[in-house]
């Protein structure tokens, strides 16, 4: 830090405020949004229901991917059985028709659930950009408490309203227990 006396926006990832309760983090998120900040994220040891709204996040597309996954599963499951039993190698079993659709339902159903579940998990990780072994927020030593009992709000330097001193004094008004600069 001492080697870069004139700090500019780009030399930092952002400013991080630490809180000791979920309520303070929520309040800080609300006032940051009111103050016009848009590029920020909260970090908490458990899911806080109202926090994503407070930070202005939009609804996720994830359920749509799960629906598409389920429909793919139905198509694959039914298509597989139809192609095998009717087209590729028809075998007459117990006088049942080649296209015995009621008997094809269980496997179709299972594959629907299988594909939809994979869609849910994969799209959750993909949309979140995980796995991501490195992220600037981990440069803050105290951030390891984000998985314990501390709550963090990080206003990112890429925010158009971000100005080191002004943002710092704004965060100080939110009664954090700590404020740290986040190295990129």
């Amino acid at each position, binding site marked *: 830090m001492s080697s870069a006396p004139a700090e500019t926006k780009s030399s930092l990832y952002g400013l991080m405020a630490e809180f000791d309760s979920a309520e303070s983090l929520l309040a800080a998120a609300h006032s940051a949004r009111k103050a016009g900040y848009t590029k920020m994220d909260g970090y908490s040891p458990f*899911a806080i229901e109202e926090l994503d709204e407070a930070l202005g996040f939009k609804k996720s597309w994830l359920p749509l991917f799960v629906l598409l996954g389920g429909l793919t599963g139905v198509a694959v499951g039914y298509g597989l059985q139809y192609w095998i039993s009717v087209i590729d190698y028809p075998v007459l079993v117990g006088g049942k028709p080649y296209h015995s659709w009621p008997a094809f339902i269980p496997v179709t159903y299972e594959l629907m659930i299988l594909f939809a579940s994979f869609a*849910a998990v994969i799209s*959750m990780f993909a949309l979140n950009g995980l796995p991501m072994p490195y992220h600037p*927020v981990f440069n803050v030593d105290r951030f390891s408490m*984000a998985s314990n009992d501390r709550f963090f709000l990080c206003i990112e330097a890429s925010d158009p309203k971000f100005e080191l001193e002004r943002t710092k004094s704004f965060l100080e008004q939110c009664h954090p227990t700590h404020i740290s600069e986040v190295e990129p």
Partner: protein
Amino acid sequence: MSSAVQPVVQQQLGENQVPPLMGPSLTYRSITEKLSDVVLSGHIPTSWFVALAIALMGVGSLTISAVVLLMIGTGIWGITIPIGWGFAIINFVWWIGIGHAGTLISAVLHILNQQWRTSINRFAEAMTLVAVLCAGMFPLLHTGRPWLAAYWLFPYPSTMGVWPQFRSPLIWDVFAVLTYLTVSLLFWYVGLVPDLAAMRDRAKTKIGQIAYGMLAMGWRGSALHWQRYDIAYLLLAGLSTPLVVSVHSIVSLDFAVSVIPGWHTTIFPPYFVAGAVYAGFAMVFTLGIPLRSVYKLEDFITMRHMDNMAKVMLATGLFVAYGYAMEAFTSLVYAGTSNEYFMMSNRMFGPYGWSYWTLVLTNILIPQLLWFRRVRRSVGMLFLISMSINVGMWLERFVIVVVSLHRDFMPSSWGMYYPTVWDFATFIGTLGFFLTMMLLFVRALPAISIAEMRLLLFEKKHHGKHHEKAHVEEAAA
């Protein structure tokens, strides 16, 4: 609440008060530390080593039995005509049923927003995974030559050009069980990710940091991530719920689609599902009670959990009792065919009559003790009753598989079933495998969800205040 009021409230509640869901002194930090220290502190209780030693003997037994079976063939087992489905299928159904409570606790109770699921769902899900693995071994071993069975189990382009027969419940079973295993694994892993991050941040050794760090995938608790995480988790719960119902229904169709008296009945799917949940809750008790006392987790798995689980067990036990009663009624009175009538009277008074009445005793009569609150709040009694149900549910599958097969339509083809030492060695082997995996699980991963316990504490602090029950809890605390 003033201190003067407190004793009065307590007095009024007396025995009727609802015990709290978590210990009164817990904080976010103490939850994190207590649950992760079980793994990270490096202190391993002697009882863990003793249990592991016993469990590993079981693994040895399983390994030897499997090798001998693959070298010689299924002839080493007691299966023969007319009883072609012996211990292997009994154990398969028993194990897969045990898995069902894990999914019920983690998925169904999550959708129903039952907060008491939180401290038991993680290890119940682990139990599901290992139980399904144990179950899956049996059909594979039962084929005798699993490597030759692949072409009729899995739809892959074999050189013979033939495919599985999709009109058979046995192939539905392959898909149902494998889907169940995979989805349970996904659900369990997604639930673990935030806790793996907590373990990463608290691990002191380099190996621990790297291992948990890789598994945590760089989870940082971002609000945006939590939003998607919650949606994905809820959807997985929603997908697992119909899945768990379908799995044991399909297992029951292995029997019900055939024409054997005692198997050919429409009550099987719901009755199997209820029995599965029943057996699974019994296994949660069998595992949870020692876990709770060895690791001093009474603040997390409280008497409230015990009480609620005992009630679920009692209710599902009554479904099962209804199933038995309805089976007896349809066979003896309603069906009006001599084969059905003979099957049931043979089941009750034939050479295997002892198994039927022991089943009624262990699975129906003894669990009725759960009607008494004092029994539901006694850890020792719950443990004994859960063992009784474990035995009872195994006998149920014995009655269905062996007793139905041993005397079918023609007296000339009747026979008796004599399991061999290898049947027992394989079964005991899977018990050892199950126990080994569970012991390794509690050593390597947090057995109770840390993130969800924190959320429960948060909710208790906030929303609880509007809730009358919470007032009672605070007063009691």
